[in-house]
């Protein structure tokens, strides 16, 4: 036993922090302090990077800001030859495509979410929702590929038919033969944002307390009435947040829209007009921007896009944060 004690004693002395009674020591472990400093610096770095983003965008856009000021946002000329730049048509193009996509996506995605949570047996739920969530993770370039080669020819046929039969209606009074344009852009955006809105809506609907639904059913309501009168009003805020998140994604989307949204700069008059979104304009023209005001104007457009998406994102985060208190991890 004595031999044991000796080796164990040696072992215990090897532990850091073992000092005889009365020795003076630093109260805070050096290791702890260093670790804290490093971790805190990394957290601060995240904030610094965000600020740097804003600062660099402003700096890059400063030449255009000085030149055009706020007229940039309301003008309708984009002419590299005469050094005239403004973004109203592309802002309108972005927002129109986004909202049409939302118009299509909201019923489909919330309808899908309702179907998944209320009409699907529990065992079947993951089978269907899992592929839909997979869809959310597909890179946008692949959506763009499919849209360009598979979807646009179909849209072209539809557009030509619509123009032939309803061409008097202003929405259908445009260059139908292109195939690319507001309609195509909106539809591919709709396909892209539906999975995201569905996934989040499904989570939100699952938080509706069963007791409330069962209460309605016990009173003799049908399943649908219970949903319409109880589940939807209860989750109204969260669903709205999910929709806003989808809009944010639609507004910021680049590759797919560049490929099928049409690349022309003009105020849109019909669904068939080709028109840039802010993102697709930057993507298409940046490599051709040959002088600094051109580049600066494109960055200015990027800053405007950034501002719009941040506003949308803040709104969505605020709504979803309030509902789920941060429990929803990233669903992208």
């Amino acid at each position, binding site marked *: 036993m004595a031999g*044991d004690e000796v*080796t*164990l004693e*040696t*072992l*215990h002395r*090897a*532990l*850091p*922090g*073992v*000092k005889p*009674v*009365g020795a*003076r*020591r*630093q*109260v*805070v*472990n050096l290791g702890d302090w260093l670790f804290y400093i490093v971790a805190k610096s990394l957290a601060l770095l995240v904030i610094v990077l965000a600020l740097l983003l804003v600062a660099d965008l402003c700096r890059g856009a400063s030449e255009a800001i000085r030149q055009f000021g706020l007229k940039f946002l309301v003008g309708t000329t984009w002419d590299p030859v005469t050094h005239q730049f403004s973004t109203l048509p592309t802002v309108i193009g972005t927002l129109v495509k986004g909202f049409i996509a939302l118009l299509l996506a909201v019923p489909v995605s919330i309808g899908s979410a309702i179907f998944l949570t209320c009409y699907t047996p529990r065992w079947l739920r993951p089978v269907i929702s899992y592929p839909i969530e997979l869809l959310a993770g597909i890179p946008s370039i692949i959506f763009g590929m499919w849209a360009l080669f598979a979807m646009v020819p179909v849209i072209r046929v539809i557009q030509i038919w619509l123009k032939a039969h309803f061409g008097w209606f202003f929405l259908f009074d445009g260059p139908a033969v292109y195939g690319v344009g507001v309609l195509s852009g909106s539809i591919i955006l709709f396909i892209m944002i539906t999975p995201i809105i569905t996934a989040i809506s499904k989570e939100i609907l699952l938080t509706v307390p069963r007791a409330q639904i069962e209460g309605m059913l016990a009173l003799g309501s049908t399943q649908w009435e219970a949903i319409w009168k109880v589940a939807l009003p209860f989750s109204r805020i969260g669903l709205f947040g999910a929709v806003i998140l989808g809009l944010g994604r639609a507004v910021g989307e680049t590759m797919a829209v560049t490929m099928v949204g049409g690349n022309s700069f003009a105020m849109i008059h019909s669904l068939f007009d080709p028109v840039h979104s802010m993102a697709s304009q930057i993507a298409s023209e940046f490599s051709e921007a040959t002088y600094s005001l051109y580049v600066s104007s494109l960055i200015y457009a990027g800053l405007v896009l950034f501002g719009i998406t941040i506003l949308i994102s803040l709104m969505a985060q605020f709504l979803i944060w309030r509902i789920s208190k941060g429990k929803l991890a990233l669903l992208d």
Partner: protein
Amino acid sequence: MSSETYAINDLKTRELEVPVATATEALGPDNGVRLRVDELSAYYGKVQAVKQVSMAIRTHKVTALIGPSGCGKSTFIRCLNRMHELTPGARVEGKVLLDEQDLYGTGVDPVDVRRRVGMVFQKPNPFPNMSVRDNVIAGFRLNGVRDRKTLDEVVEKSLRGAALWDEVKDNLQKSGASLSGGQQQRLCIARALAVNPEVLLMDEPCSALDPIATAKIEELIHELKEQVTIVIVTHNMQQAARVSDFTAFFYLGELVEFGETGKLFTAPEKRQTEDYITGRFG
């Protein structure tokens, strides 16, 4: 030590075997005191959970802390190894003297304190990503000590000390979380013993266990007190009567009464103590 359960009425008639030495020890003020607590107060923000408690914890004896829920006994015990201050907003005043050194003195590293005053928790918490062997020596390995041969000796010694060696000696590589509840708790005791603490704190160690596992641990406590001074928090009065030499009764953050277990349970001095023991409240 038998593991019969005592009905509450039996306590008044049961004769406790009190070694003569303990009786004289109890009289001398500095005789055999391992931990001396001096006017200890503990706060959660503005709420005071422990109110100026003083007591002397004797070497190689078991001291039990009893009292109704929320009386501060768990907060108190966590002050003894400087775990209370880890809660955000928590604060401690007063002194805790381990062999005459104030654990809350300036210049004292809490990490050092916790190595000398170990703790076993209510719910067994072995590290799930480590084997049984690695759990026992976690106190060494996580501090970077790697001497394989000596560590093997520590593993066997600690597991024997926790009465777990025979049950796991052929399965040391299994995950710590794969043992039964009672075995996990004994593993946690082995883990705490491995770093050779002078005092072992136990915060309701049996409340998550079945009666058989509980009995095993109570037996273990009797053997352990030869090596290490034990302070145990329990909400089970019979358990306190079974295992402890001294008992402290807490109520609403104050130490109401402290004394030899036999005397406290058969002839308590304070009315409140008697009411609690006879089940009038709590």
